């Protein structure tokens, strides 16, 4: 099971997952929390300006979820390719 092709397929799947998660990471913190923060601040919800809330609260919750998704999905990738420890 741990042939070169198998490992390469595993690595590709890993890179794809990472790419998606890092794109979200970038979008939430840099695009929403920094670049377009003023635009988002015109939206109000639950006593917050949206951009400000993302920068000071929301982004951190998203980071947490991203890591949890990665840990979970990688566990199933490890199993799928028979590469778990």
């Amino acid at each position: 099971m741990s042939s070169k092709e198998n490992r390469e397929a595993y690595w590709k799947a890993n890179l794809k997952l990472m790419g998606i998660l890092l794109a979200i990471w970038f979008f939430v913190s840099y695009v929403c929390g920094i670049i377009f923060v003023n635009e988002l601040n015109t939206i109000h919800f639950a006593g917050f300006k949206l951009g400000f809330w993302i920068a000071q609260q929301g982004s951190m919750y998203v980071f947490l979820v991203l890591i949890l998704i990665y840990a979970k999905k990688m566990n199933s990738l490890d199993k799928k390719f028979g590469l778990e420890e």
Partner: protein
Amino acid sequence: MDLKTLTILFVGASFALYIGIAIWAKAKSTKDFYVAGGGVHPIANGMATAADWMSAASFISLAGIISFAGYDSSVYLMGWTGGYVLLALLLAPYLRKFGKFTVPEFIGDRYYSKVARIVAVVCLIIISFTYVAGQMRGVGIVFSRFLEVEIITGLMIGMGVVFFYAVLGGMKGITYTQVAQYCVLIFAYMVPAVFIAVQSTGNPIPQLAFGSELTGQGIHLLEKLDQTVMALGFTAFTEGSKSTIDVFFITLALMVGTAGLPHVIVRFFTVPKVSDARKSAGWALLFITILYTTAPALGSMARLNLLNTIQPGEIGAIDGNMNYSERPTWFKTWEKTGLLAFEDKNNDGRIQYYNEKNATFKATADSYGWKGNELKVDRDIMVLANPEIANLPNWVIALIAAGGIAAALSTAAGLLLVISSSISHDLVKGIMVPDISEKKELMIGRVAAAIAIMIAGYLGANPPGFVAQVVALAFGLAASSLFPAILLGIFYKKTNKMAAIAGMLSGIIFTMTYIIYFKFMHIELNNAEHWLFGVSPEGIGSIGMIINFVVAIVISNVTPPPPQEIQDLVESIRVPKSI
């Protein structure tokens, strides 16, 4: 019981706990000493990482920075948490699979070069000592304020405790004391935050109170705070005054710097499996996020409390401010420490606190006969004095002291350990005496830890005048040197010895030169007009990182690839299973 007795009780009890753990977790082998035997549960490691990471600065200063900087402080909130995403996805699992003891060891092996290993050791030592001096200072300050002893006595006590568990237990002792320290510090942080959240808004959860209406006032906390600070000429709390490009690069430098800090990375060497390393990063961020999402709530409520106290009348009106003779008791207590300072510039006996740099408001102030801002408020007071400002019971104040010390000691110990292991494992065993016995190596590790503690204590007692500035240097250095070298080592197989060394050196030298130029040589030029692309010294590590990447990738493409066995090593760290 009076405050001092309570404080001694709380701090003493926490110290007894740490020492008890140290005796229980004595290191018997180098593996125990460097990576706690490699058998730490991912949740325990998550807590230890959180305590390791959250320093005196996070505990004491973060909420204060937020309360004064408002939106601009988002760079710290996002920067110091977003780095964990990079750590979990890009570094931790692979370094765990590599399965050795130190960060320089990975760089030395991956780049088949003692020079690369030495460069990494030098970066590590500069980064870690910069950090540790600040921690020891934090211990000294907490001791001197709460126990009314000299800073130097406080330092000696703190050093003694760290000495005991770090020298005796190594990573094993540190890990389990950090777990205990996390529990102490998070409890100490949350209790006053919950109290104040209830007082201000009636909602006990600080993260929700942050967006709630103030009790009986029918206006949201943040809206009220914005109005109040603007009435005194300050920038609105929810708006920033830094340029977007600077905020962008500072955040990036802090995120990447966080992921590249050796004392954080090495924590992920202690878990049993690769999958545990991923999981553990999630736990670490959860434990950190509890404090980091509370800090903005705490900071905003504390600032509003403070402003309301010194502005009993209409905010920003000529007679809205307080008479100095009527100041509350906590004001007097903190004046003694110098964290609050009043100077009656216009001799009217009232405390004028406003933004004298705001031209529009200055005109108003001049028409009132005000001669400048009269109150200096140190940001640390927002956490340290917060319970007193809000009239909380004495045991809450004593708790803050124990929490602050826990935060400082846990980080200091983690840093001291990576310093000592880079000496005993990388320099002595790796380069000078490769055939040294394990027993001797362990001994040298302990001696190195002891010496490092003494140097740290010295730096804490005689801090170089630029401690605050060099923290930026530590992050910038980590971002521009270690992070790219490790990342390329895993993800870009072609990276060879020369590329890594040249990359690390160009990144670090560029970053250091830029910081030294603006922070030490030409402080008068340190403004957006003179910065490269408008990036401040705090954010320049991002550019240093890009330079490192570009140099390393270009060199790798024009020089021969690394030997086959190194390419096989890279293949093997990419999968959890051993092949």
